[in-house]
């Protein structure tokens, strides 16, 4: 990074001015009208550009498919480089431009990672073979596509690769990547220059450039638009003129960029002003970030460092010893895995360890799927935990971020297979001091192995900031020194390496009683000795409390504020447990519990009421039915809402079940009548019908629910066979409402004298009247009230 380089400006608008027809392929100009392209290059070089971009933005095989030109890919790219070099005549370097595919890579879209890779590999090869000085991957809005392109570019050639994402106004790419995560990942993957272009003007790009510069050591490039285009007097114009554009060059330079240029709407004049504005300026001194261990997902970066709070690595996505999870994974279901991912993050995990170690499955395929699904659900960075190199590569390839590899031991195949993968995909490694001879027992021995692993990793090109050191926990019941050696190991890791540390904790307590006590005590000791990122069960409350207490004791939680708040919250009994029951009579307590929807409390309340000598019928009438009456009133008055009413209905159900269980003779549920209920033919929305059915069933009606999309014949048949008192019909849409008329007519024709009640979003009182219904229920609560009236008639 010795000097300021100036890129050229927009190509598309210049091509149009040079005769490119709307709808035509711009890259075809490279062979059909090379002089036009060459003149554009010349204009930019004369304006001060020191790097010009080839006219190949859309010249990848997938993009050329739109024009049926895929088979001419190599020709168009090579011609473009030749033209650029001829125009430059040594005055400027040539960057081979590669734009996005226009499709999203799985799972965001339907393009496979491998197809995207091949697409970029072929174009990169053509550009490099023709003699481009750089490759520039630009205007990418998805990090996964950028990863495919960067891997392909590096595999295709040895020339420097520039990676430019485009960010929206919210400071993230369309698919959610922030500039910090992008800079960390692309730097680790070996991008030579990291930057940003298009979508925004220079003003909006200053903070993005600053963040990029603060998070990587490589040079930063920036090619802003001349603002956003609009229509003026029938012409598309970009609002920022050359002079203003040039002035922003200084700010972008100060923010950390040393490669400056323009994107949409910029002209040779813009580039001239830009070049002039910065030409006599020295390159501002950039404060490069310290090499710390950063991991990222698509949209979030997490740092593990001794100066930062402890980071928890959730260990629960692991089928070892978990039969149900293992069986699910084997069957190909990832629901359990997804649940663990979401729940662990909710419980406080900062990173997630993913292990698919189930026998008899394709581990690589399982790892790919798991990583893909989890990365769509949570933004916690992942640790890929496998001993199988194929599964590791499948996971790394699928992961749109910088993962941690768990783990690299000093065993020949791990060193040979895992380290190159770490370098290739920009992953960090969890170093485990195990050798083919086994587990080193003492701290000194572990340090010695660790030195060897790190030396081997550095030989592969990994560096400080890529390592997380595992202290290796053995079982204290088998080795009395196990805990002591871990504590010494942690201290020595800090002294000798300075890298952050990790370990799985629970090994320590195997074979001992009260393992949670041993685990949490051990955890606290390790935190004091220098543990930075434990691999643990984040649901373990004892461990979480030990962590908070340790943070207070070690000064990481100044004055123990967070600790105090947490303990105070735990000390207050939960609202549900307040002793309201004691103040109320048994009947009042049951009634109140139904109103409050206390489903779990009600069985014991019912049991107590029976024990106190109350009759089942009394409980039903004076507590349960009375509660529903009150609920109906509150609902009608807008003081209670449907999900609350349904909670009460569930509580009623639970109460009835308990009554039935304890007094089978007395507690035959009151039978108010029989209701046949259905959503009419053609209509698939049955939520409203289900709600109404649930409320009727729990108000003493015998319910026959025919489901949704039910034919008139079936409804009539059920009504007659069951001697229904009421037929309830539901239709949501105007298109299906007419079926109500048909059912009512068919019922009459069949001589069925059941009353008909109708409802649904589009149904009104007027409609119900005209269809000949006996009642119109605007909601489920009203339906119960009306049903009671109808059966009395």
């Amino acid at each position, binding site marked *: 990074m010795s000097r300021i380089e100036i890129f050229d400006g927009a190509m598309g608008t210049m091509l149009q001015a040079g005769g490119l027809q709307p709808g035509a392929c711009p890259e075809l100009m490279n062979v059909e009208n090379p002089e036009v392209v060459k003149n554009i290059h010349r204009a930019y070089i004369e304006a001060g550009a020191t790097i010009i971009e080839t006219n190949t933005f859309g010249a990848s095989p997938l993009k050329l498919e739109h024009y049926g030109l895929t088979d001419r890919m190599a020709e168009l790219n090579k011609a473009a480089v030749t033209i650029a070099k001829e125009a430059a005549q040594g005055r400027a370097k040539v960057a081979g431009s590669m734009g996005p595919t226009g*499709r*999203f890579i799985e*799972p*965001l*879209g*339907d393009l496979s990672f491998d197809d995207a890779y091949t697409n970029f590999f072929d174009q990169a090869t053509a550009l490099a073979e023709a003699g481009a000085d750089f490759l520039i991957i630009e205007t990418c*809005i998805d990090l996964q596509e950028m990863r495919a392109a960067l891997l392909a570019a590096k595999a295709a050639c040895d020339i420097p690769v520039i990676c430019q994402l*485009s960010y*929206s106004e919210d400071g993230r790419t*369309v*698919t*959610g990547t922030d500039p910090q995560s992008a800079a960390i990942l692309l730097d680790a993957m070996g991008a030579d220059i990291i930057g940003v272009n*298009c*979508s925004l003007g220079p003003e909006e790009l200053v903070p993005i450039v600053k963040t990029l510069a603060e998070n990587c050591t490589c040079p930063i490039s920036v090619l802003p638009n001349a603002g*956003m*285009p*609009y*229509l*003026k007097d029938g012409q*598309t*114009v970009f609002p920022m003129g050359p002079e203003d554009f040039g002035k922003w060059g200084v700010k972008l330079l100060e923010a950390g960029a040393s490669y400056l240029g323009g994107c*949409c709407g910029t002209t040779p004049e813009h580039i001239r002003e830009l070049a002039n504005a910065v030409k006599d300026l020295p390159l501002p001194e950039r404060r490069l970030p310290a090499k710390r261990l950063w991991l990222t997902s*698509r*949209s979030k970066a997490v740092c593990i460092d001794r100066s930062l709070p402890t980071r928890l690595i959730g260990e629960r996505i692991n089928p070892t010893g978990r039969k149900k999870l293992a069986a699910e994974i084997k069957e190909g279901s990832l*629901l359990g895995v*997804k*649940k663990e991912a*979401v729940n662990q993050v*909710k419980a406080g995990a900062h990173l997630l360890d993913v292990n698919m170690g189930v026998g008899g499955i394709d581990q690589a395929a399982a790892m790919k799927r798991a990583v893909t699904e989890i*990365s*769509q*659900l*949570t933004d916690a960075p992942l640790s890929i935990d496998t001993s199988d190199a194929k599964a590791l590569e499948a996971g790394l390839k699928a992961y749109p971020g910088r993962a941690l590899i768990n783990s690299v031991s000093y065993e020949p195949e791990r060193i040979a297979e895992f380290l190159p993968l770490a370098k290739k995909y920009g992953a960090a490694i969890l170093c485990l001091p195990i050798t083919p001879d086994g587990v080193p027992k003492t701290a000194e021995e572990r340090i010695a192995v660790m030195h060897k692993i790190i030396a081997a990793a550095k030989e592969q090109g990994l560096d400080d900031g890529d390592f997380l050191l595992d202290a290796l926990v053995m079982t204290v019941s088998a080795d009395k020194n196990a805990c002591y050696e871990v504590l010494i190991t942690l201290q020595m890791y800090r002294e000798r390496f300075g890298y952050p540390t990790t370990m799985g904790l629970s090994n320590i307590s195997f074979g001992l009683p009260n393992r949670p006590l041993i685990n949490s005590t051990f955890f606290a000791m390790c935190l004091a000795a220098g543990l930075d990122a434990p691999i643990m069960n984040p649901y373990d409350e004892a461990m979480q409390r030990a962590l908070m207490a340790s943070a207070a004791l070690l000064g990481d939680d100044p004055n123990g504020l967070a600790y105090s708040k947490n303990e105070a919250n735990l000390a207050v009994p939960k609202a549900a447990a307040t002793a309201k029951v004691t103040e109320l009579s048994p009947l009042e307590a049951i009634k109140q519990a139904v109103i409050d*929807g206390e489903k779990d409390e009600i069985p014991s309340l019912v049991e107590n009421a029976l024990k106190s000598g109350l009759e089942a019928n009394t409980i039903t009438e004076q507590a349960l039915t009375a509660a529903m009456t009150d609920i109906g009133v509150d609902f009608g008055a*807008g003081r*209670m*809402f*449907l*999900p*609350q009413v*349904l*909670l009460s*209905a*569930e509580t009623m*159900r639970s109460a009835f079940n308990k009554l039935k269980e304890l007094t089978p003779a007395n507690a035959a549920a009151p039978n108010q009548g029989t209701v046949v209920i259905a959503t009419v*033919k*053609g*209509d*698939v*929305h049955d*939520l409203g019908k*289900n*709600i109404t059915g*649930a409320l009727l069933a729990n108000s003493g009606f015998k319910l026959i629910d025919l489901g949704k999309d039910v034919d008139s014949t079936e409804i009539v048949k059920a009504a007659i066979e069951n001697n229904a008192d009421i037929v309830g019909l539901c239709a949501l*849409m*105007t*298109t*299906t409402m007419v079926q109500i008329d048909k059912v009512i007519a068919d019922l009459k024709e069949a001589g069925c004298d059941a009353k008909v009640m109708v409802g649904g*979003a589009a149904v009104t009182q007027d409609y119900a009247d005209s269809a000949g219904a006996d009642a119109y229920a*605007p909601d489920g609560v009203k339906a119960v009230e009306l049903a009671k009236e109808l059966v009395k008639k």
Partner: protein
Amino acid sequence: MPIYNTPLLAIDAKEARRYAGLQKAQDFAEEKILAACQDARLLAQPCSVWEIYDYDCQSQMIQSSPPCKIQGEKIGQHLAGCEKVILLAATVGDDIEEDVTRRFNAGEYSMAVLLDAAATAAVEQVADGLEKALAPKMAAKGFGMKWRFSPGYGDWPLEQQPELIRLSSAASIGVGLSSSMMLVPRKSVTAIIGLYRKQENKEIQHAPKGCAACSQVNCPSRKR
């Protein structure tokens, strides 16, 4: 037929609360709504698809092959001044709907209703995600985007759903229609977005959006 599957890193609990008809319920436990949102995230299979067409706003014709005339005065007004239109379809799939039914049958009524509401919030988010993905692309070409508008809003008849299914390539993501013009899976949307040339210092008129365009004024989910 470009496909985009918005990741659901969170489901908007406030929207789920609204769709459950709980806007005014101060005392309804937030944990229940959050639990429903979380379950919805695990069950949802978010997916969306879109196509862009030229549009003649005078005749309300989409220049597809074969072309399609947009029926309805309000949608016509909404698309006035637009040169192109995006037709889109979005869904969260079948699994979530099956789980709602399963919960109802198991007597978990309130959770079923909350999950259904969370699924509605989710499918809207999937469509929002697609819009967000398209906006910068369109802006770079000088286009602004009108609100998303669906059949059934205002006076746009549901009978045009088959055309929306065709024009948006909805079948490619498994979204289709029942015989009575209902989207299957149920938690799906189809919509049109008008694209207009951004003018200097000129704000474009939009038709009423979302709830404001709907005639169900007593709907419990209606935005306050």
